[in-house]
């Protein structure tokens, strides 16, 4: 079974995972959605990588949501009525961190988790190869995508070394 087939087989578990994590972090009931995408406009997304040392493969986990959801999350998590751009990145980064850790437990045991990296973008579409699940919270869609190795540049291991060091040491 390929990694993508494995992720596809776990789709229902990934949906349940996203709903549970969103509900806990947002403090609101999250519901599954299947036919809605992200709204147009700025998207806040976080990504992290899971490294399997046995076969030296990377699994990429990313979370995307609208700046509206990011703003509410940041406001609630940081107790500030008017969160700034860094607050949005911090809140969605932690959401991605929690989701990534739970994905690791579900699909990639005994692997290493990178630190999350978050950014605001106008173009953060899900990858075409990965498995994407969606849930709605605060009336807005949040996407979780699990994919095989994407771009790991800009990601760091706990402690501080960049993931790209691992790739360079292969070659």
């Amino acid at each position, binding site marked *: 079974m390929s990694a993508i087939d494995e992720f596809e087989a776990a789709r229902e578990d990934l949906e349940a995972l996203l709903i549970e994590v969103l509900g806990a972090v947002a403090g609101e009931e999250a519901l599954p959605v299947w036919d809605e995408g992200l709204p147009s406009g700025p998207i806040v997304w976080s990504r992290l990588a899971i490294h399997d040392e046995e076969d030296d493969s990377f699994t990429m986990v990313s979370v995307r949501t609208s700046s509206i959801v990011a703003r509410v*999350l940041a406001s609630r*998590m940081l107790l500030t009525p008017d969160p700034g751009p860094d607050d949005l990145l*911090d809140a969605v980064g932690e959401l991605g961190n929690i989701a990534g850790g739970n994905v*690791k437990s579900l699909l990639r045991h005994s692997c290493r*988790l990178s630190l999350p990296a978050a950014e605001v973008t106008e173009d953060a579409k899900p990858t075409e190869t990965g498995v994407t699940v969606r849930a709605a919270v605060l009336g807005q869609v949040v996407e979780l995508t699990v994919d095989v190795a994407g771009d790991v540049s800009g990601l760091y291991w*706990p*402690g501080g070394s960049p993931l790209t060091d691992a790739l360079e040491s292969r070659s």
Partner: protein
Amino acid sequence: MLALVVDDSRAMRSILTRLLSGLGFDVAQAGDGAEALSVLDAGTRPDVILVDWNMPVMDGLTFIKNVRAREELRDISLMMVTTESEQGQIVRALAAGAHEYVIKPFTDEVIAEKLALLGLVA
């Protein structure tokens, strides 16, 4: 009672600070293990440290090992609060000297329950 919250996420530090303050703790914060060691080196002596595992500069497991290696810090309770949830990692953290282990996402009740087990809240 004083708690030290060690997490690279400001959002998570804020959540834990609010929770601990509601339980009657004064709360200090640090963004990674190295910064937390600096706080301890400056003389701060918390009753409990809640520490994340995956952080830049110094991770939580290394921090716990550092704390446990120092005689003058032996009385401090250590609670790992992390998204790492595999049995092997829980065992590693406890073997390194963590007293309690909490997996994110958590509820307020879980943290309060763990603090009660440590004898820090009623």
